[in-house]
């Protein structure tokens, strides 16, 4: 007598091949995708050193001093060199710079888009405040913005 036992049917899913294909797809998309970097940057042209002098600019630049009055992003003080009045914050600075720029909308402006803008933070100014002022000038679409040598707080801002 031949006794044949019925084989138990196994309905198992073959995971190996599935993992195989899933990984292949993952790698394909990772290689094919261009990842967006979560960082942005402001371009700044560095003038070449000339006889040890720091910055030699052709035009009389618009000088903007900035100092930190606290640790918050808005805790900064701005002062323009010259007869330009008081500037309260970076928004007011952008507005002033926009209004002072000569273009098709403001023919009575004072500065060309290429006019040198010199941001001079104090020695102890926070980097974020220096860049906030730099950004204000960039927002007003000035193209010749430079970070200059720091000034001591007492010399410029009272």
């Amino acid at each position, binding site marked *: 007598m031949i006794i044949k036992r019925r084989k138990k049917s196994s309905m198992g899913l073959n995971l190996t091949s599935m993992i*195989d294909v899933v*990984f292949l797809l993952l*790698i394909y998309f*990772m290689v094919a995708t261009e990842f967006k970097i979560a*960082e942005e940057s*402001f371009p700044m042209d560095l003038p070449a050193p000339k006889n040890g002098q720091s910055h030699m600019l052709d035009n009389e630049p618009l000088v903007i001093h900035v100092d930190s009055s606290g640790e918050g992003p808005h805790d900064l003080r701005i002062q323009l060199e010259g007869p330009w009045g008081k500037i309260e914050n970076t928004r007011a600075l952008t507005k002033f710079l926009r209004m002072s720029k000569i273009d098709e909308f403001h023919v009575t402006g004072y500065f060309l888009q290429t006019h040198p803008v010199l941001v001079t933070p104090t020695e102890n100014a926070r*980097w974020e405040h220096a*860049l906030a002022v730099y950004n204000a000038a960039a*927002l007003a679409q000035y193209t010749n913005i430079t*970070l200059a040598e720091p000034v001591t707080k007492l010399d410029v801002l009272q």
Partner: protein
Amino acid sequence: MEWRGKPSSSINANLTPMIDVTFLLIVFFVVVSQIVDRDAVSMDLPSPENAAASVAEMQERVVVNIVPSDGGAVQRVVVGRHEISIDSLDELTAIVKTRLQGGASEVYLRADRATRYMVIHKAIEAIRKVGTTPRLQLVIDGDNE
């Protein structure tokens, strides 16, 4: 009566799919390591409101990291695998010069938002001393919207 003995069961691991998956994992980690930007040191970058900055491009570049310390001071400057003391920035000039001669076109400056400008300016001056008027990119946090 015909009797069939139990077939000798051989427990062998099937190596083929294991090798398959292992190789895939290797490829996966190699790809990931290429994507991760090893030049960037973790720090709290400035994030100005309505930033008029542009997205940093993935090109041959020199990334200068000014690693912060407490109270707006600086621990050290990191460029790739080089770690430079803030008091010996001539070394920074030399490294940036070498990298620019090696094909890099721009210098990216990364500094913490709380770092004092006085120190950052020293680094900018050191980069400026390279002499080939490189374009400096001041890096900010792009996730500020």
